[in-house]
Structure formats: C-alpha cells, structure tokens
C-alpha cells in the first residue's frame, strides 16, 4: 500500500467520522447554537469528502454556499428566535421515540444492505478526467444543462422575493381566523398570541 493510498484512507476515515458524529451532535445536542456550529463542521467535512472524490469545484461551491450562506442564515435565525421557553410535555413521547428510532434503524439497515449487495458497474479509472472536472462542469452547464441553469436563476430570484415577502412585518394587517389586528412585534410581546392553540 503506497503512502498516497494510506493518506486517502486516513483522510476518508477522519472525515466520515466527523460527518457522522457531527450529524449526531446536530440532532441530539440540547443547545441549538452548538448544533448550528456543528452543522458548519459537518458541511466542511462533506466538502473534504468531495475533494477526495476529485471534485474541487463542487467542494468550493459547498464551502461557499453551505458554510458561507446557509449556516450563517441559520445562525441569524437562531439569534432572532432564540428565546428560553418551557416546552409542554407530550404524553406519548416514549412510544414516539421508539417508533421513529426503529423506523430509522430499519431504513439504515435496508440502505446498507442495498449498498453492499448490489453489483455496481464501476467504470475503469483510466477514463477519469480527474482535475479537469471544472472545465467539464462548465461545458455541461452551457450546453446540455443550459435550460436548468437558467431556470435555477429564476428559482433563486423567486426564493429571494418570497423570503422578503414572508419575512416582512406588514404582510398581514389582520389575523386570518379572528379578524383582529396582528401585533407586528418580533420579540417579547406582552399580549397573548393571536393564533392560539386550539386544543
């Protein structure tokens, strides 16, 4: 085993351990702020996995979009809505946990079984374009994937306008169900919430 292959193995093992443990921390940790920062670590390690797969452009896009934009957006959202609140206890939380965990474990075993038993038709590594993948992605984006590329720009514009409209303060002047004017304050309002619990 040459040094390069050993290095690849070590890198892959470390990166996948960080991905799995970080993802477990994201869903299990009590503090949502720690979860958000662990999520950034998971995104960075996924970018490292992309680098192992000879895809430097996608790794850079992953770091820019996920760590630079999505994660920062999530941290800002936590900053806006992070209020200590006592969650109401759910009476059948135990059975819910058991059922969901068993469903996830069953799905995981099924997926792993498919991964291991299926015979993948691997192509020979001689055809690999390796580090020229950025050029090939550019060719794809401007020839056979031109329409999805243009549609993606329209999608981003729509998402931007939709986010602005949804997050604006004066989007609803009165409540839909009660007809009373909506209190537009974002934080720490003293009045009762208008869309009250029905149960």
């Amino acid at each position: 085993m040459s040094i390069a292959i050993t290095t690849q193995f070590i890198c892959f093992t470390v990166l996948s351990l960080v991905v799995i443990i970080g993802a477990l921390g994201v869903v299990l940790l009590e503090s949502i702020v720690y979860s958000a920062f662990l999520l950034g670590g998971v995104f960075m390690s996924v970018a490292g996995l992309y680098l192992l797969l000879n895809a430097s452009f996608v790794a850079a896009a992953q770091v820019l979009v996920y760590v630079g934009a999505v994660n920062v957006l999530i941290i800002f959202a936590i900053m806006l809505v992070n209020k200590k609140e006592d969650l109401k206890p759910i009476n059948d939380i135990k059975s819910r946990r058991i059922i969901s965990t068993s469903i996830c474990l069953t799905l995981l075993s099924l997926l792993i079984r498919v991964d291991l038993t299926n015979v993948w038709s691997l192509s020979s590594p001689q055809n690999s374009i390796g580090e020229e993948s950025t050029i090939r992605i550019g060719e794809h984006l401007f020839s056979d994937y031109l329409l999805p590329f243009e549609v993606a720009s329209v999608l981003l514009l729509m998402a931007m306008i939709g986010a602005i409209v949804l997050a604006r303060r004066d989007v609803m002047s009165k409540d839909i169900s009660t007809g009373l004017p909506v209190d537009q304050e974002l934080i720490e309002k003293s009045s009762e919430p208008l869309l009250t619990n029905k149960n």
Partner: protein
Amino acid sequence: MNLESIPLQAFLIVSSALFCIGIWGLLNSRNAVRVLMSIELMLNAVNINLMAFSSYIDNNLIQGQVFTIFVITVAAAEAAVGLAILLSLYRNRVTVDMESFNLLKW
C-alpha cells in the same frame, strides 16, 4: 490519483447513515430551526451519493457533479424560504415548538 483504493460502498454507507440521522432529527426535534438543519443534513447525504456515483460510475461525463450543483442551488433557496416562514410563524405564535404548529391538524 487512483480512486480504486476507497471502495464506493464506503461513501454510500456514510451517506446512508447521514440520511437516517437527518430523518431521525426531522421526526424528533421540537425546535423548528433544528428541523431545517435536519433537512440540510439529508440534502447533504443525497449530494454525497451523487458525487460518489459520478466519480466511480460516470467518471468521464460527471453529470452527478452538475446535479449536485443544482441541488446546492435548490437547498440555498429552500433554506432562505424556510427561515422566512419560520420567522413569520414565530411572529404569530411566539414559539418555535413544532408541537404548537397545529393549525392544519384535522
């Protein structure tokens, strides 16, 4: 660089585990922000799958990498709209508890 050293199955198992962790978090979180984070985890698992297939099976045309770019685009749009919906929900309900968003419950 020879990609034969790490088997394809290793990448697939990592992405399967990540996907299942994402589903577990989606089903079990009370905090709406954590639900959005779980969705991002699941999208990343799908991306790892696409990238692994593109470099092991389709390593000349690499259409999987193009798909990954599009998935990243859609994920960014989804995160923006999702967090805007979350802010507007928080303004109406003053909570981010998933159990209290039950207006559509029948």
